[in-house]
């Protein structure tokens, strides 16, 4: 045997012992020194340098240098490693003298570090840290926004403070030129039914979404039919826990529940809400005379099921709204216009996201929605009796309108990861629009089979340079025309958290139904966007500056004929600054937009600044939470310079501007507080809010009488809106209970 065959003397034993000891105690140490830099020669601090397979090593200091001693001898390998860089090994021979090694590490392209294409878009939510500007919590805690996503988006640069109608008016674009998408598919009626001269709220609660991207231009080829803006919302996945919620406020009552399955792989839930403005309107005087108090019923339901490596989500919401109001008739102040509205809306969205393996991912969306309006308007006298005046321009305000607009759609997007983190993405969508309208018994029907195909690539050339290039093809059977829209953007990291992006894209949109009812002999309207953007992000601060130019072609003209002869342009710059760092616990953002835009469209006799565009718009949003009193205070101040208004009159076969001007500047200070507490076993949030704290006069435009001699300012139905509510939630987290019970 090996052990027994060795003959050992005391002397040999001593040598052996020494040999063993020397390996333990070490012998003469040699110093290894050097530098660690990246491939561009910038020093890397904190890189780990070591002799491979030994414990000897060091860390590069603030000058990128390292120095350590080793007992290793002979042929060795020195290794330098740092997170985010490819590890480098350099073989050396260690003799008696110190050794010097210079390392150059190559950065790995990673999703965390890579530049993101940000031109034109604000990402809200934390899907990607680098682009985060607003979180869903921000929507709830923006003063005066009353948890309306659109109201919060209006505090971001690019959006106008338009108060007389709903919608996002972005960079000189009309409200209908901004579209909303949930989990990839188009939302046909994102706002509650429209009442003339009053802006309605968005239909969807902010808590439904984990992230919202507000794109003010240059957006991805996945989205189309929006000339100026896309609001892209991504719904939440499984909730963290089961809960029951209830709310009671000055205007509504709500009840909801959400159940998470025991294995945490599925959830389902629903909510019901009832809004009635009678109690509120009896306290806070409104300008219109409501003969039918606004009432809303809304119910929603959802389920979400985790699949093998994805998720299936279904969301449906149904709402019904009823209201009636009287306002003075502009042509004859002794008469009144009695406007009645009943709206029903049913929205369904089923989405399926799945990783298919081998770098393939799939996103599928199926949607169905229907929106029905019954609208009546009657001319009434002082005693609320319907009258016929015999004057055509007054009597024509008597109408009965029924509209139905349905959208069925399916969209499929496939992602394939190519080299590194670069991705190609392609897919298609099919939308079936069914729009019916009956105006005083005159019926029209519009049916559109709308198809699109799209492909785009996210190419990461290095961590510092990325490109997104895409193309979109669309065909509408209604106007029987197709289009091809190229989109391209580039982003380059300039260092220290800063990056530059540029974007170019073509955007097409078919004319609104109201014009298609007149004739289908239309082509697509078109906008071309050019954007340069600089953004600098740290965890707690964001600075963003953007310059854009937009060219509009083929806009809809309604006079002298219905055609695509309209055109226009828009240019401007925007600044955004958000800071949560300077004053601890204080979060504020400041946005400013300058816009210069002109259009010749609809019945405009010439190129004019449209009525929905102000030259200067600014917002300051401030939030502070005081943990000691569990209360947050939020202020939002918005300012916009006056917007133009026109009285276009038909004279001798031509429209001319009989009167024009600019409205007064718009000022609005919104305030809200939220107090967190518990009521029994429920978590409770008490919310109070008021818009237009200083009661500033707000004028959104003017309505003119038939002969042009009278003009009435369009103002909000009440100068201020007050809100007080309590939101309760009973969390049912069985695991939390289980842990507590073990104590």
């Amino acid at each position, binding site marked *: 045997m090996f052990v027994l065959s060795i003959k050992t003397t005391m002397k040999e034993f001593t040598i052996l012992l020494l040999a063993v000891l020397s390996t333990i105690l070490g012998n003469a140490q040699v110093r290894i020194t050097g530098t660690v830099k990246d491939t561009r020669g910038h020093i890397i601090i904190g890189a780990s340098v070591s002799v491979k397979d*030994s*414990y000897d090593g060091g860390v590069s200091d603030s000058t990128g240098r390292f120095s350590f001693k080793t007992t290793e001898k002979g042929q060795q390998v020195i290794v330098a490693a740092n997170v985010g860089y490819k590890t480098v090994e350099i073989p050396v021979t260690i003799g008696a003298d110190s050794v010097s090694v210079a390392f150059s590490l190559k950065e790995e392209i990673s999703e965390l570090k890579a530049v993101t294409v940000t031109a034109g878009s604000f990402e809200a939510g934390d899907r990607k840290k680098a682009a985060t500007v607003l979180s869903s919590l921000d929507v709830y805690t923006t003063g005066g926004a009353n948890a309306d996503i659109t109201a919060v988006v209006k505090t971001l640069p690019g959006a106008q403070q338009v108060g007389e109608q709903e919608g996002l008016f972005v960079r000189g674009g009309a409200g209908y030129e901004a579209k909303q998408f949930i989990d990839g598919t188009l939302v046909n009626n994102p706002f509650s039914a429209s009442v003339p001269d009053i802006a309605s709220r968005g239909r969807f609660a902010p808590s439904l979404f984990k992230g919202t991207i507000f794109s003010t231009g240059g957006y991805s080829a996945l989205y189309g039919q929006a000339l100026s803006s896309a609001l892209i919302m991504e719904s939440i996945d499984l909730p*963290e826990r089961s809960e029951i919620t209830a709310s009671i406020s000055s205007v509504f009552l709500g009840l909801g529940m959400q159940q998470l399955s025991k294995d945490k792989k599925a959830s389902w839930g629903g909510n019901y809400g009832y809004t009635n403005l009678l109690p509120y309107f009896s306290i806070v005087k409104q300008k219109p005379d409501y003969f039918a108090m606004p009432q809303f019923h809304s119910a929603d339901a959802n389920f979400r099921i985790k699949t093998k490596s994805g998720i299936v989500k279904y969301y449906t919401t149904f709402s019904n709204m009823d209201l009636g109001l009287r306002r003075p008739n502009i042509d004859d102040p002794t008469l009144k216009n009695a406007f009645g509205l009943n709206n029903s809306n049913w929205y369904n969205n089923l989405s399926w996201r799945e990783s298919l393996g081998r770098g393939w991912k799939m996103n599928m969306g199926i949607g169905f929605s229907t929106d029905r309006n019954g609208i009546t308007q009657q001319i009434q006298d002082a005693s609320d009796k319907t009258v016929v005046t015999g004057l055509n321009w007054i009597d024509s305000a008597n109408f009965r309108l029924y509209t139905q607009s349905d959208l069925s759609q399916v969209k499929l997007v496939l992602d394939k990861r190519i080299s590194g983190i670069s991705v190609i993405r392609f897919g298609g969508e099919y939308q079936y629009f069914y729009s019916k309208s009956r105006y005083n018994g005159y019926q029209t029907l519009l049916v559109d089979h709308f198809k699109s195909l799209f492909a785009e690539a996210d190419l990461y050339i290095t961590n510092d340079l990325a490109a997104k290039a895409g193309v979109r093809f669309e065909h509408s059977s209604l106007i029987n025309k197709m289009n091809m829209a190229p989109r391209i953007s580039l982003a380059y990291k300039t260092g220290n958290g800063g990056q530059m992006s540029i974007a170019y894209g073509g955007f097409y949109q078919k004319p609104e139904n109201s014009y298609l009812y007149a004739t289908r002999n239309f082509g697509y309207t078109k906008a071309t966007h050019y954007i340069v953007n600089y953004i600098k992000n740290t965890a707690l601060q964001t600075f963003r500056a953007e310059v854009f130019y937009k060219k509009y072609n083929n806009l809809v003209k309604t006079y002298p004929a219905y055609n695509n002869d309209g055109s226009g342009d828009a240019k401007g710059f925007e600044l955004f600054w958000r800071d949560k760092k300077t004053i601890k616990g204080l979060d504020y953002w400041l946005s400013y937009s300058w816009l210069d835009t002109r259009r010749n469209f609809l019945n405009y006799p010439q190129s004019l600044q449209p009525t929905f565009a102000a030259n200067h718009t600014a917002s300051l949003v401030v939030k502070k939470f005081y943990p000691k009193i569990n209360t947050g205070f939020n202020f939002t101040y918005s300012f916009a310079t006056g917007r133009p208004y026109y009285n276009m009159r038909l004279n001798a076969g031509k429209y001319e501007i009989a009167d024009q001007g600019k409205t007064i500047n718009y000022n609005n200070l919104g305030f809200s507080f939220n107090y967190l507490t518990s009521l029994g076993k429920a978590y409770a949030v008490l919310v109070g809010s008021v818009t237009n704290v200083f009661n500033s006069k707000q004028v959104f435009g003017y309505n003119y009488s038939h002969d042009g001699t009278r003009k009435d300012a369009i103002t909000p139905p009440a100068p201020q809106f007050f809100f007080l509510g309590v939101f309760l939630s009973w969390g049912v987290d069985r695991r939390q209970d289980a842990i507590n019970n073990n104590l």
Partner: protein
Amino acid sequence: MKHLFVILSILFTGMAAAQSKYEAGIQKGFEQMKTAKTAEDMTAASALFERIGDAEKDKWLPYYYASYANYISGWMNPKADKDKVAEKSKDLLGKAEALETNNSELHCLRQMIAIQQLTVDPMSRYQTYGAEAEKALQNAAKADPNNPRIYYLRGQTLMNTPEAFGGGKAAAKKQFEKSLELFKTFQPASALHPNWGKEDAEKSLTACQ
């Protein structure tokens, strides 16, 4: 026989030496952590643990301590970019997890790193990092409900949660008491295994009184 004895004793010494090289390395790291005065000192300790992990290849403890020391360095420098520190801590933790699956201590460390990232912007990060931290502690309790550090960490979180949301001193106190109760009987698997937290729990309990 005499030869055999000598040879065996030499071999034993050798083995002991091999063993103690690892042990001595870890102990040296402990010493560096204990004497660290700046974040850089702590990073150096983390780097030593990382080198030990890289050289040993099959031991999770060095990576655990490398991640732990790196995490602490993030607190020692108030100006540190905590997301960057966490990226490194998570990288090292991942290496430990690759060698040792479902260890309560590793889950605890994941919670600590998530909390460190949460503190950057608690209001808006609560939903992501708060959930990540909570999930990690739940996993830690599943892996070993008798790990006293779980309750110490939960207590820490509760101390910093408003009372309205189930936090506060009273709720935290229960957790610290439970932690100290478990510390009475807690025996680390070896002298090298995690054994920190008792003093911290005692201090925190005092702060709750």
